[in-house]
């Protein structure tokens, strides 16, 4: 695998680990106030940043990163397009939860889940385009 493919794999693993951990940990909790909702969002942000930065530092020490070229840009654009569709669909689901008066804690998890799914769609499709072709 190239540097870019390994970088994508790292990001996918980090999302699954971090969002999975916090999703399970906070599932069913009220998530109100600064200690709940803010703690969840800050925790996810810091965990994702630390994990991906450390993994990329290790990766950069082992593999040389190549500059971006036209194929990389095409793959990124297509990945973002796919993520947009997923984000749109999941936003409709969140809207449905709001309209059905779902409680605050579950809504926050749904919003974060929507972001996570969109990112997984972007990264997963980029990986497929790199491996199988555009």
């Amino acid at each position, binding site marked *: 695998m190239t540097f870019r493919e390994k970088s994508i794999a790292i990001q996918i693993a980090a999302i699954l680990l971090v969002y999975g951990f916090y999703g399970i940990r906070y599932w069913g909790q009220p998530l109100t106030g600064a200690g709940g909702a803010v703690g969840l969002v800050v925790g996810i942000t810091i965990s994702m940043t630390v994990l991906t930065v450390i993994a990329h530092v290790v990766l950069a020490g082992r593999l040389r990163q190549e500059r971006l*070229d*036209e194929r*990389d840009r095409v793959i990124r654009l297509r990945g973002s397009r796919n993520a947009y569709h997923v984000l749109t669909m999941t936003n409709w689901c969140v809207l449905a939860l709001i309209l059905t008066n779902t409680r605050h804690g579950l809504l926050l998890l749904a919003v974060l889940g929507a972001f996570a799914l969109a990112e997984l769609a972007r990264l997963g499709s980029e990986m497929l385009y790199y491996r*199988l*072709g555009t």
Partner: protein
Amino acid sequence: MSKAAPRTQIRNNIRALRFQHGEMTQADLAERVGLTRQTIIAIEQGRYSPSLEAAFKIAGVFGVRLEDVFRYD
């Protein structure tokens, strides 16, 4: 190098042309046309169709016409 099935309908003779030009490496060709080696590999295997600009640059490196490098099946 694994032989992946081509996904585009653009076929090319880059591999043959590289060997006819002093066994030019994929890295050399990539450097001369401003692409990455991974992209040259993807083009050779038919997993990526290059932009028109990149296609002309590749033909220019070998000193041949565009249709001598690429063809549409």
